[in-house]
């Protein structure tokens, strides 16, 4: 063991000058495989047959026409919550309230559809519903965003705690009161009131794939262009890489924080609107509380916060989520639905570990080199301190 320890101490971790493009694809794929192995071990230990579970997962989500359609339906909100997380996390603004913003987006969309859906012509009713969803999500991040921009309150905990508040609001509207969101005909088993047909999103042929998927893809493309090609995106990137540099460049940190977080909230709210207008056609508190907002964070991390990469990653995780309920009814096995959550959580952990190999390379140290390494440390200690801020900012990411 001590031999191994000595050997390990010979390993030097060096920062790569630039990220190798192949690694950006290979590392997430390896993370997914590693997570599958981890979950397989867990399944085997708890008395399930991992091969059977994975075969069923493939069948339900990826290898049949029906399965792929269902996967895309599940992926639609994940693209949007994934973008919501990506646009914030990319600039080191940690909106982890996507879950709550999705609920409030759904509440706002359902409310708008019920209020004006009958009165407006179809396309306009849809537009109002979808916009209401985005505004709802935006409203739900407003307090954390303003507090972060003006008071410096960390947005992490405030945005997260509002998820619980949103969940209780949603439950209250459908289960706890006789609100306009509740179906007045449902007395014993309360459920959401159906939204008018005019406000529903169009579907592709006979499948359950809805217009929301197209919207999500267009938003992803647009976001990519905004971040990489526009002045706005440039100021966000400067702020994200180094708030200090942004300050010297005259970029208003407040404006960046506010705009990015509100945009993030709007995207999550849009996901909620899509679930109401494209999927359930009502405010469905049980059906919405699947952790779509949290899974969006995993989507974003696996996509390394790149809006275009969010699309394939959302499809992959959409398939994993979609397979959960089917696995539970696997004859004679009854694998808990939570296997999906476990699997996505494990994927994120492995992807995080893999990040090291994207940003650094491992190199065996020459034993004779130890002295020069010590010198390097000393040199670093006494080296110029300018740029330390930028370096630590880089490390943190």
């Amino acid at each position: 063991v001590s031999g191994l320890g000595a050997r390990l101490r010979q390993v030097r971790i060096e920062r790569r000058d630039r990220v190798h493009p192949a690694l950006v694809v290979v590392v997430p794929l390896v993370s997914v495989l590693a997570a599958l192995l981890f979950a397989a071990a867990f399944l085997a230990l708890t008395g399930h047959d991992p091969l059977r579970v994975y075969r069923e997962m493939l069948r339900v989500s990826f290898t049949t026409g029906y399965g792929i359609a269902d996967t895309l339906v599940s992926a639609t909100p994940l693209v949007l919550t994934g973008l919501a997380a990506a646009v914030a996390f990319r600039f080191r603004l940690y909106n982890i309230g996507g879950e709550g913003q999705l609920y409030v987006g759904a509440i706002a969309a359902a409310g708008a559809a019920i209020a004006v859906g009958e009165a407006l012509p179809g396309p306009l009713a849809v537009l109002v519903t979808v916009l209401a969803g985005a505004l709802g999500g935006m409203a739900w991040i407003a307090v954390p965003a303003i507090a972060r921009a003006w008071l410096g309150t960390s947005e992490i905990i405030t945005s997260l705690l509002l998820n619980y508040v949103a969940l209780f609001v949603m439950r209250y509207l459908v289960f706890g009161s006789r609100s306009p969101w509740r179906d007045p005909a449902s007395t014993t088993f309360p459920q959401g009131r159906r939204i008018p047909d005019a406000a529903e999103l169009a579907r592709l042929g006979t499948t359950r794939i809805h217009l929301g998927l197209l919207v999500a893809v267009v938003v992803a493309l647009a976001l990519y262009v905004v971040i990489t090609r526009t002045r706005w995106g440039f100021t966000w990137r400067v702020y994200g890489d180094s708030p200090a540099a942004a300050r010297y460049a005259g970029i208003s940190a407040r404006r960046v924080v506010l705009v990015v977080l509100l945009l993030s909230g709007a995207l999550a709210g849009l996901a909620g609107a899509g679930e109401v207008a494209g999927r359930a056609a009502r405010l469905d508190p049980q059906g919405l509380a699947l952790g779509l907002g949290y899974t969006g964070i995993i989507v974003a991390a696996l996509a390394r916060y790149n809006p275009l990469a969010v699309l394939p990653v959302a499809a992959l995780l959409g398939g994993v989520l979609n397979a959960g309920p089917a696995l539970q009814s696997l004859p004679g096995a009854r694998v808990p639905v939570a296997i999906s959550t476990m699997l996505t959580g494990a994927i994120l952990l492995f992807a995080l570990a893999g990040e090291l190999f994207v940003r650094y390379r491992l190199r065996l140290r020459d034993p004779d080199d130890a002295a020069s390494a010590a010198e390097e440390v000393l040199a670093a200690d006494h080296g110029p301190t300018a740029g330390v801020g930028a370096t630590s900012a880089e490390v943190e990411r």
Partner: protein
Amino acid sequence: VSDSVVILTLAAAVGAGTPLALAALGALLSERSGVLNLGIEGIMLVGAVTAFLAADASGRPLVGLAAGALAGGAFTVLHAFLCITMRANQIVSGLALVILGTGVATFLGQPVEGQPLSARLSGTPIPGLSEVPVLGRILFSHDVVVYGTWVLVALTAFYLLRTRTGLAVRAVGESPATADVMGIRVAAVRYAHVIASGLLAGAGGAYVILARVPAWAQAGTTNGIGWIAIALVVFASWRPWRALAGAYLFGAALRANFALQAAGVRGIPAELLAMLPYLLTILVLLVLSASDVRQRLGAPAALGVPYVRDER
């Protein structure tokens, strides 16, 4: 009569605040060494499900408590490894822990969902002290975990603020490079304190199922108190005794429905009462950051930043 309502409410606040205090103490230890542990909620759930299964199998609540703490500590090794050895983003790693922990707990807890635990922790009033008017009822008529938490808080406060090792821990959290030069093993200190945070959060989760909630309710068992515990550390300016006081304060908010019902207030929707602790936490965070800079002064300077010796 109103007197006894107040006393009962305060006693309930101490009980409800105990898992918060344990988890906050854990988060505080990890943060003092410079590592943010946002995974508390997931760790608590892992601790809670393990405690349920162990207590159910053994028939002994204290076995459940130990198993829950150990499971929490073991689970948190993942976070320590990712943040310290793999230099991962501590925020995202913590979230990963919450998601994986929730998944593991709901997976293992599925067969017992909705089931009450038979081997619950019973009360052990302290002889003599529990008969003291008012205070006896509020403070000394609880179970061993409540008293144990006081001991842990006292030990932690002494350890962090009065011992050489504690000084080393604080040095690692404030300036790891300086600590490194002083010969302190930064990575070892951080591993130890991150894992300690897991042990404490695991114990907190275990206490929730052993004494607080009537039945296993999947992720609803802890229902976000792990996040409130993290906010409590800010509220307490990274000081153990303040964390305990804050935990009891928030414990009172968690039991607000009980207090209002006892006081004869009716007609407030259950959902509104349920969201009260979360709103209160947000409000406190806002007021803290608006009112003074003490919160920033209290935060360990190197919190959230991985330490890499040759890359400073």
